């Protein structure tokens, strides 16, 4: 049972454009929402994370927007670069749990030069 639905499955963006990846969840007990970036042959790397008491968090070119009432959160990559081409995963943890991450299905981003 997938607890977080991620879209789109793949995304192609021109250099300098904005990449937007969306995730939707159902369980309101989820209380930590990170985004991970993964390059082929590498482990996932933490990009940015947010808690549900904050509506937006920005770090450099990466922004998380969080809509608690809609149970949705999204990753925005501003001024996308070819080096951003990777697979992106949203994830969450659940309060009271062991804090294991449950991941979305991933979005393969390609930024064209």
């Amino acid at each position, binding site marked *: 049972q997938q607890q977080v639905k991620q879209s789109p499955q793949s995304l192609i963006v021109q250099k300098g454009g904005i990449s937007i990846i969306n995730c939707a969840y159902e369980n309101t007990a989820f209380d*930590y929402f*990170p985004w*991970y970036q993964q390059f082929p*042959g*590498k*482990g*996932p*790397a*933490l990009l940015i*994370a947010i808690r549900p008491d904050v509506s937006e968090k920005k770090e450099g070119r990466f922004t998380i927007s969080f809509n608690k009432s809609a149970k949705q959160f999204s990753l925005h990559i501003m001024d996308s670069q070819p080096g951003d081409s990777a697979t992106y*995963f949203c*994830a969450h*943890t659940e309060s009271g*749990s*062991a*804090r*294991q*991450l*449950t*991941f*979305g*299905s*991933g979005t393969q981003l390609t930024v064209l030069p």
Partner: protein
Amino acid sequence: GAGVSQSPRYKVAKRGQDVALRCDPISGHVSLFWYQQALGQGPEFLTYFQNEAQLDKSGLPSDRFFAERPEGSVSTLKIQRTQQEDSAVYLCASSLERGDSYEQYFGPGTRLTVT
């Protein structure tokens, strides 16, 4: 500083063989997690340690999978009598677990291929 390291990076096993995968977490990190990542999928949780205690093993797919962290640092994931469906990348992550910090840092993974 040094990140999470895993060894071997690649492992080919014949069906029925036993394998052992090693994880060296970031020094001082209390929590250690194992995940399994099938090709084209997101990682899936296998098991969790807090120091040397295995507090959650609900994600282990069968009793052929066993994990340990005897001294609260290095961890080993062992798979007995490997099957083809065990082929995947096995990821280890560690976390400081201080205050409300939930950040998990992943190693490069071990790619297991069962032939």
